C-alpha cells in the first residue's frame, strides 16, 4: 500500500498542493481527477520521487518496481521498438530471453511486425502502445499514469483503454492514474479522488460501485455516476 501524508508543495510562493492525504491499496487502480493545472501531475511526480514535496511523507514506494506512463511516450528515438523495451529489462537477463519477452509483448500490444521500426517510423498511437508495453514488460509493482491517453483520438483512446485493461489483469499492479476525463476514471479505477482547483485539496473520495469486469461505456449506472460527478464536482 502507498500512503501520502500531509503532502504540501508550493511553486514561487503559490501553494499548489495543500495537506494532501491519500492511500492506494495493492492491486487496485485509483484515479486522481481534477481540473487542468490543479497539481495532479505534480502529485504523481512527487509519488514517483521525481520531485520532492515541501513537507509530508510518502510510504510504500521505496524498493518497489515502478513504471510510469507519461503524457508523451518518451521513447529513445535512436532505438528500435524492441530495443526500447529491452532497455528496461534487468541487465542480468540473457539477451535471448529478453528478445523473446520483448517480441511477445510487442505481439500482445499489436505491434507484431514493427519490432525493428524506429519510433519515428511509428504513428503516435503505436508509440503510446509501445510505451505501455514498456511499462508492463517489467514485473511492475506500481504503475503511475499521467493522462497517457490524452493526446489520442476517441477511437485510439478506446483501443488503448482496452489494451490497458488486458495488460493490467495479467499483473494487477497498484495503479495511480491522473486524468481529467471522468469516463476514463470510472471505466478504469476502483477509487477516485476528486481534487479542487488551487490550492489543491481533496473534495471527494468515491469508490466505484462496479467491479473491474462489469465496467463498460454502455453501463447505465456508470453513466449516471459520470453525470453526477460532472454536475456536482467538476463544473
Amino acid at each position: 500500500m502507498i500512503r501520502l501524508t500531509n503532502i504540501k508543495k508550493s511553486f514561487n510562493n503559490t501553494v499548489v498542493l495543500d495537506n494532501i492525504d491519500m492511500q492506494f491499496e495493492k492491486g487496485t487502480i485509483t484515479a486522481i481527477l481534477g481540473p487542468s493545472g490543479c497539481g495532479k501531475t505534480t502529485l504523481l511526480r512527487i509519488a514517483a520521487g521525481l520531485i520532492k514535496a515541501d513537507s509530508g511523507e510518502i510510504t510504500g514506494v521505496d524498493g518497489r518496481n515502478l513504471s510510469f506512463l507519461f503524457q508523451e511516450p518518451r521513447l529513445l528515438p535512436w532505438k528500435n521498438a524492441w530495443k526500447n523495451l529491452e532497455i528496461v529489462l534487468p541487465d542480468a537477463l540473457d539477451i535471448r530471453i529478453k528478445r523473446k519477452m520483448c517480441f511477445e509483448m510487442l505481439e500482445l500490444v499489436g505491434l507484431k511486425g514493427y519490432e525493428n521500426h524506429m519510433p519515428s517510423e511509428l504513428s503516435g498511437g503505436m508509440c503510446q502502445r509501445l510505451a505501455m508495453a514498456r511499462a508492463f514488460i517489467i514485473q511492475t509493482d506500481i504503475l503511475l499514469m499521467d493522462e497517457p491517453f490524452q493526446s489520442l483520438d476517441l477511437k485510439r483512446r478506446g483501443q488503448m483503454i482496452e489494451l490497458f485493461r488486458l495488460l493490467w489483469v495479467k499483473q494487477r499492479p497498484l495503479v495511480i492514474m491522473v486524468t481529467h476525463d471522468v469516463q476514463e476514471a470510472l471505466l478504469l479505477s476502483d477509487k477516485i479522488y476528486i481534487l479542487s482547483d488551487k490550492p489543491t485539496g481533496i473534495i471527494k473520495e468515491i469508490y466505484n460501485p462496479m467491479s473491474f469486469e462489469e465496467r463498460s461505456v454502455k453501463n447505465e449506472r456508470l453513466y449516471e455516476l459520470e453525470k453526477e460527478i460532472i454536475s456536482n464536482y467538476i463544473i
Partner: protein
Amino acid sequence: MKKNVHNILIVVFIAALILIWHVLSLGRKSLIFPSPYEVLVSLYSVIKSQSFVPSVINTVGSVFLSFAAAFIPALILGIISRFITFIYRIMEMVTGFIRAIPTVAIILMALLLLPVSYTPVIICYFVVFPVLYTNISEGLRNVDEKLLEMARIYKFSNSKIISSIYIPSLKSYIIAGSRSALGLNFKVMVTAEVFNFINHNTIGAQMYMRKIQIDLAGIMAWALIVVVISAVFDLLIKMLFREKVRND
C-alpha cells in the same frame, strides 16, 4: 529518380561555374587571372612534384594533431561544465574571448611567443578548441530531461544512462562540431604555415613559395587540393557516424 535529377543539376551548376571562370579569364594573362585549364595543368605538376606527398602528409598530420589535442580537453571540460555551473560560466567566458580574437592576432602572437616548430599546431588548437567545446557542451546541456526522468523511473544504471541517452544525444553535436572544426582547422593550418615558414614541405609553405614566384595558378592548384582533402575528411566523418547509427 529525384536524387539523379539533383546530381545532374549539381554537375550542371559546377560546369556553369567553370564556364564563367573560363570566359572571365579570356584575354587575360595567367599571371593576373589563370584559366581553369592553366590551373589544371598547374595541379598536375603540383601532384607530380616530389614535395606533394610530404607536404600533404605534414599538413594533414598537423591538422589531426591539433584536432585531437583540442577534442580531448573539449570533451572533458564539456562533461565537467555540464554538472558544475561555475565551470560552465568560466568556459563560456574563455571560449567567447578566444573566439573574438582575430585569427591573425593569434597567429602573430603565437609566432612571437611560442617555439617555432609547433606554432601551427598550437594556433589551430586555439581556433578549434572553442568550436568543439561549445558543441559538446551545448549537446550535453540539451540532453532531453524527459528521457533522463524516464531512465530514473526504470532505474537505469549510470553506464546505461551514458551509453543509451547521453552518447546518442551528443552524437549529432559531435558530428556538427567535428565537421566545422576540421574544415576550419585546414584553413587556419595552411594560413599558419604560410606565416611560419620553417618547413618547406607543408601546404602553406608551398603556397608561400608560389606567391614569391607570382604563380597564381599554383596557389589555386594548392587551394583546390586543400578543398578536396577537407571534403574527403568531411565525408569520412559523415560515413563513420552514419555507420554507427545503423549499428544501434
